[in-house]
């Protein structure tokens, strides 16, 4: 009996090891056969009742065997890729049981893998860096600093720069401006975001008509969502929904990291000790992934029973807006407070202040919120007729803009698709649970936000992406490439291991 490895196409009528591209360990003489008819003394012989293991190490391309749980040492080195486990039987009536891990192995393979995992990690940890003293540290600090600046954590960036003796490349005021715009986008207040951008960077959007178009399409979506300032002021949602985006723009490439937002929301909620309050609150601002899902099913059942007609919608709206008004005094206080923090020229991070204030408020109005959460459902443009009209009007403007863009800049399929998708929302009675409903997900604000942020940074001659994000992306890509090229050590290294 021979146990070993074969490449595709090796003759299956001969024992593994005898032919080219095949490798084997034979029981009768205990020799190893490395693509050759003559074997080398390797290990003990084996026979009925013995458990023989064959392990291919894809990191160093070697193979060793085990007998009854004892490692026999390396049998083959420099193995080619893509080998298949092979057992060759020679004696009539021979029987072999194969175990590919469905039963525990006799040999402690887990322990072996632990050793290699540690080796690979030590190799990464000890990778030689920098030729000159301190150069490496300076580079790391620059990466951290630029990341903080990029995302507008101005207070942190300032403190970090101070304690590491660095200069921040961008002016503080500029960082704060970007932060303000980002916050508006992430809160779904696109109209204000566009306005502020135009105010602070007058020529930016003029020079970037495609960007302006993308922002406007997003504004349209937010109108449908009922979160945009233009429809909100028409009596839709309680104003407090806008600032409730509790997650800072921390992700490196927003879409791929989106699940973490849901998690963060959850953490925050449990951290406050009353997740029910929070989810009630959250549903009003349609922010988190978790609450959205729960809500969707609820809405869906409602809407299937009642056909969509305007009077009915209005009725519901009236009752709802009343409800909202009944506690709006509380909320306005908080909102103003927060908003002023966001733009105030204080050195502290406006967002952090806002959110802590916010949590505090939340506890004060517990009871009302619970009532709110039980009755709340999502409605087109927040449920206001005026808002719907405004949205329809805005949609026509958008259509006009699209046509103008096409005239001026030629066809743009991306733009066309964007607009089509956005308009499709109106085709469904419940846009949130429609096939195009994911556009309404607050996470979709992130790519828009990051494109806008990058565009602003570019006008300052700063990198579109923070170097840290680039490095992370590079590392992830590199691991993917290693996996595709069959470099085994990538199995024991993940970028996440280093993101504590």
């Amino acid at each position, binding site marked *: 009996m021979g146990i070993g490895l074969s490449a595709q196409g090796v003759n299956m009528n001969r024992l593994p090891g005898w032919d080219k591209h095949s490798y084997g360990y034979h029981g009768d003489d205990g020799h190893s056969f490395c693509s050759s008819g003559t074997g080398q003394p390797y290990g*003990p012989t084996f026979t009925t009742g013995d458990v023989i293991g064959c392990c291919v190490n894809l990191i160093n391309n070697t193979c060793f065997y085990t007998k009854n749980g004892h*490692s026999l040492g390396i049998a083959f080195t420099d193995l080619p890729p893509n080998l298949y486990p092979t057992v060759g039987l020679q004696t009539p009536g021979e029987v072999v049981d194969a175990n590919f891990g469905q039963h525990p192995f006799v040999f*402690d393979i887990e322990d072996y893998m*632990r050793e290699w995992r540690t080796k690979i990690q030590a190799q990464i940890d000890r990778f030689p860096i920098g030729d000159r003293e301190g150069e490496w540290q300076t580079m790391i600090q620059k990466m951290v600093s630029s990341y903080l600046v990029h995302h507008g954590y101005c207070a942190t960036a300032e403190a970090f720069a101070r304690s590491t003796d660095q200069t921040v490349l961008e002016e503080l005021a500029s960082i704060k401006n970007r932060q303000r715009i980002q916050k508006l986008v992430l809160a779904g207040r696109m109209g204000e975001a566009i306005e502020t951008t135009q105010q602070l960077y007058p020529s930016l959007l003029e020079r970037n008509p495609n960007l302006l178009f993308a922002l406007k399409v997003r504004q349209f979506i937010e109108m449908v969502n009922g979160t945009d300032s233009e429809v909100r002021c028409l009596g839709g949602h309680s104003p407090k929904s806008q600032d409730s985006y509790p997650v800072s723009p921390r992700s490196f490439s927003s879409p791929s990291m989106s699940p973490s937002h849901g998690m963060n929301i959850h953490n925050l909620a449990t951290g406050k000790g009353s997740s029910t309050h929070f989810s009630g609150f959250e549903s009003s601002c349609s922010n988190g992934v978790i609450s959205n899902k729960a809500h969707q099913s609820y809405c869906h059942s409602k809407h299937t029973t009642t056909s969509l007609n305007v009077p009915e919608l209005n009725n519901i709206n009236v009752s709802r807006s009343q409800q909202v008004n009944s506690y709006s005094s509380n909320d306005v206080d908080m909102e103003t407070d927060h908003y002023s923090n966001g733009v105030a020229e204080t050195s502290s991070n406006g967002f952090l202040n806002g959110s802590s204030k916010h949590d505090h408020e939340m506890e004060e109005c517990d009871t009302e919120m619970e009532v709110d959460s039980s009755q709340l459902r999502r409605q087109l443009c927040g449920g206001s007729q005026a808002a719907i009209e405004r949205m329809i009007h805005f949609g026509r403007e958008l259509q006009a803009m699209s046509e103008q863009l096409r005239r001026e800049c030629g066809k743009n399929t991306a733009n066309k698709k964007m607009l089509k998708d956005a308009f499709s929302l109106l085709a469904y009675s419940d846009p949130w649970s429609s096939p195009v409903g994911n556009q309404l997900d607050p996470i979709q604000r992130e790519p828009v936000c990051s494109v806008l942020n990058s565009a602003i940074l570019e006008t300052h001659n700063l990198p579109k992406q923070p170097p840290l994000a680039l490095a992370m992306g590079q590392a992830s890509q590199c691991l993917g490439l290693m996996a595709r090229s069959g470099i085994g050590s990538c199995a024991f290294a993940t970028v996440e291991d280093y993101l504590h």
Partner: protein
Amino acid sequence: MKNAVIGNNKQKANLIVLGAVPRLLYLLQQETSSTELRTECAVVLGSLAMGTENNVKSLLDCHIIPALLQGLLSPDLKFIEACLRCLRTIFISPVTPEDLLYTDATVISHLMALLSRSRYTQEYICQIFSHCCKGPDHQTILFNHGAVQNIAHLLVSTSYKVRMQALKCFSVLAFENPQVSMTLVNVSVDGELLPQIFVKMLQRDKPIEMQLTSAKCLTSMCRAGAIRTDDSCIVLKTLPCLVRMCSKERLLEERVEGAETLAYLIETDVELQRIASITDHLIVMLADYFKYPSSVSAITDIKRLDHDLKHAHELRQAAFKLYASLGANDEDIRKKIIETENMMDRIVNGLSESSIKVRLAAVRCLHSLSRSVQQLRTSFQDHAVWKPLMKVLQNAPNEMLVVASSTLCNLLLEFSPSKEPILESGAIELLCSLTQSENLALRVNGIWALMNMAFQAEQKIKSDILRGLSTEQLFQLLSDSDVNVLMKTLGLLRNLLSTRPHIDHIMSTHGKQIMQAVTLILEGEHNIEVKEQTLCILANIADGTTAKELIMTNDDILQKIKYYMSHSNAKLQLAAMFCISNLIWNEEEGSQERQDKLRDIGIVDILHKLSQSSDPNLCDKAKTALQQYLA
């Protein structure tokens, strides 16, 4: 001062010369000093102790140890920690006698009590214990002070250093100590038994130091019988771990320790020897131990050469030891060892190395391999191993002589081709002198080798042995208190008294003394084997031509033979019967008279009785004897 001396041995020496130590010790001991001051003093002293060995000696001369031990009685933890740190540094220095720790009995119990104070006290105290525990006396003192219970829970400390030092403590406490080892298996920490904790510390992602030390703990426990040799924690965990420690990837120190520990683990268990022999090509892996300093290291850099040279002896002796253990019992393994590249040359070279440790290990290895008949006839002969072996035996210390003479015993077996040249190189004289040794093992080996030498030897050799030994010494050995010596001496006599001309020759010169000795032993309080051997000697004498008369004329002996023919033990009956057969054998001269005489004393009656015996051997033998009378 503290800042001036850190990392600067020159400054340390300067301060010591200037007399800083007595002053520091004075301030440290002064009750009126503030604790801050006393602590700083201990820190500076600790820093001085980190210097050269001479610095440590100066500190010891100023009686620093009692002063620091006194400091441990302070209520202030910071001060205690500083004192312990300094004590630790002093005790791990090779110039400090470890007995200083045991001079005052209260010190150990106080240290045990301090173990609960902080992770630093734990680390330093464990380190002191593991460095100062040398030999069974120290082990017993620490054990009796509850070291096992006090240190066990430190194995799960959150601090790696504490875990590691606690583990080291156990490895020295349990080493060759059955009492500690038997206790350890039943101790549990947080519901987990110590062996399980040790096994976790063996995992391959743990630091090598930790894997190796826990393997040593488990090895001691296994050798003490506290863990079975077929327990999976030995077979599947400890053994493979130790084999890995022998691999080329490990540091030289680790490879030495790994091989020595493995040699100890498998020394007496053939199954473990078999598993080790197939694990990770261990036998081939060990061949690499002989390649230091390598030719590459000599060229590349001088530092590496120095490092290699320092470890070369240690590596070689460790490899020899492990080969000796591997080949102790299994013939196939011996064959594999000898087939390893240049193995015999390496042993031969090892036998003549300057380092006694290497020589001893090489002899051990040779001894283990000499148990193979095939190897004695082939590779041992090809490499003339007897030559360096005989050289090793000259003026060697006892420890070496024991193993070397044991090996010689095997080389002197009749089928061994080395026998002749060994004799020619004056082995008889050497072996005869061994039989006079105070050391029991040497006496046994000496007489044993002579016995082997005399087996089927030519007359000259036998005479040489008798002459070399002298009859006085022979009788001395026959009254030796050790039964092994007695048995081998009787064996020697029996081998000397074989083939008729030899029997007659020897009995003509030493007949009287031999007969006396035989009588003495048959009358004495000895076990069955001894008596049987003695009766066999008589049977040999009875086989001689002239020697027969020495028995026939000795009525006392004849009565004794008669007595043993009716003895309750069949073996003795059979041996006595051999005597009788030889005496009454028909074809020989004077057989008729002897038959008559023996009939007169009632032998024939006994023969008749025995021919009815249920024992087929006895029955057969009796019938054959009776036939001699009929013919």
